[in-house]
């Protein structure tokens, strides 16, 4: 057993995150290997979305160190804005993309502009080149024919697929999905999940998924982490977690959501 594990692409080292008096993440340790597909499950308020939001640098944290793609930052006693400089944060962000529960497409831009905006502004691609890549990405999510539509003209499922294409256009190494199907009508969930499923076959892309779709989690993940009260209570291969959970809290939770 001399095989060395690759250096983790994500490492939370004793991270503590508080909202006022409420401790959301408590001395939190968590590592993810490059290319790994990890699903975070657990009751609401257990800190799983906060993990994604910290990774996307949308939330500061108070203690500990976060290392992302070899770059670390820490926020000693930080309560206000990020202690790390804007340049440093933007460098960290350049490796990460995020898909939100409420899509958050830019309503005043066409589908095409939503996808090309950041590649043109941030990566410095020419508009023609960005549009060329955007056409491929929109085809990937099955929306090549909607490129001139505005978000308001699309269904929720279509909007979320555009949001996925928009995130992919930045070529992230880590893609975060924060309850991507929770805001969708039930009949639209499938089309979004099938897009995420196809992405799960990409070997280089690291994926973190917060979801309540347990069957889907079992199908696409390499690892499932059960969150409870700001810590990972139990983690393991999906088959083990779903068929043979060790912790009573995990059993309780799964019984309540699987019915």
């Amino acid at each position: 057993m001399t095989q060395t594990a690759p250096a983790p692409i994500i490492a939370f080292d004793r991270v503590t995150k508080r909202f006022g008096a409420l401790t959301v993440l408590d001395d939190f340790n968590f590592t993810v290997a490059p290319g790994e597909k990890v699903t975070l499950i657990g009751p609401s308020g257990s800190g799983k979305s906060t993990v994604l939001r910290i990774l996307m640098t949308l939330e500061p944290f108070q203690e500990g160190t976060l290392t992302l793609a070899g770059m670390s930052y820490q926020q000693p006693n930080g309560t206000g804005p990020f202690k790390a400089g804007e340049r440093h944060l933007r460098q960290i962000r350049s490796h990460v993309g995020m898909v939100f529960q409420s899509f958050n497409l830019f309503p005043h831009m066409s589908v095409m502009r939503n996808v090309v905006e950041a590649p043109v502004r941030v990566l410095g691609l020419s508009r023609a080149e960005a549009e060329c890549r955007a056409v491929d990405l929109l085809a990937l999510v099955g929306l090549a024919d909607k490129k001139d539509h505005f978000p308001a003209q699309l269904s929720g499922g279509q909007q979320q697929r555009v949001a996925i294409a928009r995130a992919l256009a930045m070529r992230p190494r880590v893609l975060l999905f924060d309850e991507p199907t929770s805001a969708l009508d039930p009949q639209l969930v499938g089309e979004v999940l099938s897009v995420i499923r196809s992405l799960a076959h990409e070997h280089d892309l690291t994926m973190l998924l917060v979801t309540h779709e347990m069957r889907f989690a079992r199908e696409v993940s390499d690892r499932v982490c059960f969150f409870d009260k700001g810590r990972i209570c139990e983690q393991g291969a999906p088959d083990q977690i779903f068929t043979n959970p060790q912790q009573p809290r995990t059993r309780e939770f799964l019984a309540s959501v699987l019915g």
Partner: protein
Amino acid sequence: MYGFEWDTATPLTYAWSILPIILIGLTVTLKAAAAGFSIALVLGLVFALLRRSRVKAIAWTTSVVVEFLRDTPLLVQLFFLYYVLPDYGLTLPAFLTGAIALGLQYSAYTSEVYRGGIEAVPRGQWEAATALNLSRTDVYRDIVVPQIVPRILPAMGNYLVAMLKETPVLSVITILEMMGLANMIGERTFDYLVPLTMVGVIFLLLTLVCSAGLHWLQRALPKAGIPLQ
């Protein structure tokens, strides 16, 4: 005056004979309002952005300046700029002074409109922009400003109309705008009714045109791809 003769035989001929002078005043009124409002639109946005600065001192100083501009009468600001500043070596032409005073006062109002508009942009939009790694400049230019334009349009239109109606105050610093000229005509002919009525009607027409233009914009913007909330 201006070499015009006026005919006071009947109100109608009187009105007709002073119309050219009133129209000269109208161009001054329009120029002052256009210059003042342009200043207010740009400076108001600058104030709104500075007030959101992460540097506390900048945000605080801007708030004080905006509050000061808003809480002092336009007339006092006008007199100050025109009659006091020259004592300290800064003499500006009357028209420029008027445009600056209007612009400064109204930039305090428009900055509040911008601020409300910016705060109404949903959190998710900022977060999506951050997730795409857009810089702050990109976020404001491409995401925030285009989204607030339809939202702030009605309030901005109101301030344009209000400013237009306030231009007569510029006559106190010798700017010969429409109202000032009408007043001078009245002094010469001892008949104020006709010139002042004409000024009133012209202001009414201007206001109606502004409102119509605003309605047109509000209809045209969604077609241009900017949805109204």
